[in-house]
């Protein structure tokens, strides 16, 4: 890969706080002059990554290279990087001029001079007052706030303070400008304006921008490259077009833009089955592989009644200005459609989806697999620290339990599975969520929820970072604390190691 223009590179960077992994093994680089966005929901590690680049945090593992040099341990005041903070962080006791000039007054620039022996030497000097004044005026001009030099910070509006914060950072001519959700505190209209202005500033200044946001639209509008993150892990890196059109997984598809997500089966030979129909597609997967399918609402088109690929009934219609948004029921599945055509609701319709607009993604996981489970004294299986009732007789085909709890094989051998290591496998749809912490066996927090056409896929994470993926018809809220139940007969067990180890003498 051409790395000549790389300005900053993260190599295996991780950050762990009190055993919680905030950033997990990040590897990526940013090219000189690029506008890169870190995009993800709160707690995904985007701000932590930015703070490591700024120097406020040091990576627990890995290296941060600036122009090929390791800066991981360099303090913030020695990095040619400046930050625009979310809540501006202006110095309230200084006026606009002194805020913007703060960095310049500390800056030392090299100059060449000849010493007594007539040798050329490089010395450092501070900027003169006139130089500082000139730069401050220029910076204020860039943010459209000339004439504001002597104003008190507290008399400025939020938008003006934001501009001063930008001016204060860019006046130092950093190699990289870091922006931590800088528009988060502004109202919608102001935000849209500032987005365009920031983009324009980026073009004019030619410096690298790294922009942190949880707003997918903002990231799509402004960036050259987007890094999508979730739970301290990079989900996808790509251009806005890539990320929108070719999301790598269900999370990215759901997070970026609106989407219809379905579970489907790849039939082989460029055919995929979902919504009870076999569609032509352009992606290539292994035959009979279970996959996730994403279709953008604007890519579903109405066909003449009865002549489309799938038939359904329109149940909802919302006018959105540029288009209508419809909900169509196909059996028990929902399809969201965006169209400029006005249709009557509660009538049957037919729709088409073009092969190249069906995007097929590999399923991350097919079921919950716990490879560190084990059996306790009472023939229960310990998963994620909780004891679940289960059927241990499945470990030996045709066996039954005797009164003392030993597994008796058809040949009369008795097995004692206490402390046996097993592999437990539970289907997504076999887990039940209980909405209080005491009702189930193991409790955890709902980390994410994705709608898959006719059900939700919920990710529940326990305190020990064990995950339960659950398919459910009901909506839950992210961050809710819940607990899980699994019916005994739904836990599939597989012995790890030889059964003979557990034969009771």
């Amino acid at each position, binding site marked *: 890969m051409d790395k000549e223009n790389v300005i900053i590179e993260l190599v295996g960077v991780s950050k762990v706080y009190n055993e919680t992994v905030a950033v997990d093994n990040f590897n990526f680089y940013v090219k000189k002059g690029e506008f890169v966005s870190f995009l993800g929901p709160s707690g995904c590690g985007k701000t932590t990554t930015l703070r490591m680049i700024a120097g*406020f945090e040091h990576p627990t593992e890995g290296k941060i290279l600036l122009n090929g040099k390791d800066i991981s341990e360099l303090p*913030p005041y020695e990095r040619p990087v400046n930050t625009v903070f979310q809540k501006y962080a202006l*110095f309230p006791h200084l006026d606009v001029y002194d805020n913007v000039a703060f960095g310049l007054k*500390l800056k030392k620039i090299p100059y060449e001079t000849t010493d007594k022996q007539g040798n050329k030497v490089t010395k450092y000097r501070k900027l003169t007052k006139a130089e500082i004044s000139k730069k401050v005026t220029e910076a204020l001009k860039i943010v459209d706030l000339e004439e504001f030099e002597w104003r008190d910070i507290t008399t400025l509006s939020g938008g003006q303070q934001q501009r001063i914060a930008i001016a204060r950072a860019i006046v130092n001519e950093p190699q990289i400008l870091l922006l931590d959700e800088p528009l988060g505190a502004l109202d919608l209209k102001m935000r849209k304006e500032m987005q365009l202005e920031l983009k324009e500033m980026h073009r004019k200044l030619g410096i690298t921008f790294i922009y942190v946001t949880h707003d997918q639209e903002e990231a799509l509008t402004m960036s050259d490259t987007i890094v999508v993150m979730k739970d301290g892990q990079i989900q996808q890196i790509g251009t806005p077009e890539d990320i929108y059109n070719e999301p790598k997984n269900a999370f990215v598809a759901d997070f970026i833009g609106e989407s219809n997500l379905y579970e489907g089966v790849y039939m082989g030979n460029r055919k995929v089955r979902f919504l009870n129909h076999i569609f032509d597609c352009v992606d290539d997967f292994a035959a009979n592989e279970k996959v996730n399918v994403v279709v953008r609402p604007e890519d579903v088109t109405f066909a003449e009644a009865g002549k489309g690929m799938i038939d359904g009934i329109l149940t909802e219609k919302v006018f959105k200005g540029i288009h209508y948004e419809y909900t169509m029921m196909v059996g028990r599945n929902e399809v969201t459609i965006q169209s400029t055509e006005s249709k009557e609701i509660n009538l049957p319709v037919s729709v088409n989806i073009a092969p190249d607009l069906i995007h097929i993604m590999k399923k991350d996981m097919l079921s919950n697999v716990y490879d560190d489970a084990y059996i306790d004294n009472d023939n229960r299986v310990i998963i994620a620290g909780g004891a679940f009732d289960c059927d241990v007789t499945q470990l030996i085909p045709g066996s039954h339990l005797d009164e003392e709890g030993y597994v008796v094989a058809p040949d009369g051998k008795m097995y004692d599975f206490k402390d046996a290591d097993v592999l437990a496998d539970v289907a997504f749809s076999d887990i039940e969520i209980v909405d209080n912490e005491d009702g189930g066996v193991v409790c955890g927090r709902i980390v994410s929820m994705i709608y898959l056409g006719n059900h939700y896929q919920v990710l529940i994470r326990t305190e020990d970072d064990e995950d339960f993926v659950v398919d459910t018809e009901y909506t839950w809220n992210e961050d809710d604390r819940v607990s899980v139940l699994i019916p005994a007969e739904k836990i599939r067990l597989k012995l790890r190691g030889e059964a003979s180890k557990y034969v009771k003498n």
Partner: protein
Amino acid sequence: MKKATRIFARIFVWTMLVLMYAPILVLMVFSFTEADTIGVWNGFSFGLYPQLFQDEELVTVVLNTILVALASAAVSTVLGTMGAIGIHYSRRRMKAALEGVSQIPVMNAEIVTALSLTVLFVYFGIQFNFITLLIGHVVLTLPFVVLSINPKLQQMDPNIYEAALDLGARPSHALRRIILPQIMPGIFSGFLLSVTLSLDDYIITAFTRDTSFSTLSTYVYGATAKGALPPTLRALTTVIFVFALVLLIVINIRSHRKKEAAR
């Protein structure tokens, strides 16, 4: 019914105010008469005031008191500011522990502090002198400085220290140019609080001073023990009260103006 309640409320407030201020007012009134015994009025006179400044012993005592107050307040303010900043930037668990520990002396009975200091000095064979007195007053006032700076640190935007570092400031520069100006009002009120606490302290002073060194409180206490109060004291307390009143008014006007300006 409503009217009766209102009248009752008025009476209550005025009774409280009279109870609070009557003693001081009586003292002030009697500072304008030269009688030796309190409660006897033998004609209006400013005479006690010039006498106040002629009483050399009293002048020394007043100067001593001011010296101790200013010196201990200065030391407490410097230590307290450093302490408060240190506590503020400690890790979460350490911070909670330090905050708790630093506030115990506020709750602690002064007599306990005084006694412990005495025992400590005696144990190490330290002669009571100005330094021991100063240490005593610093111990007394330090927690109050921390207490008055702490809220200012908490109100401060948590990112501004990082912003200063980001712009190229070394930690010491950021501390001087960014954090200190932000918490200055807290430092200032901590200093004033220290001065007032030290000015009227008796217990710690009595325990930690060199007996030849008197402050106002020990002087007054000594005088009452001997018998009649010197009449000049009435003039002195009036002066102190008026001084405190003026100081209070000045501080209030200042903070009021600031609030107006912020609007």
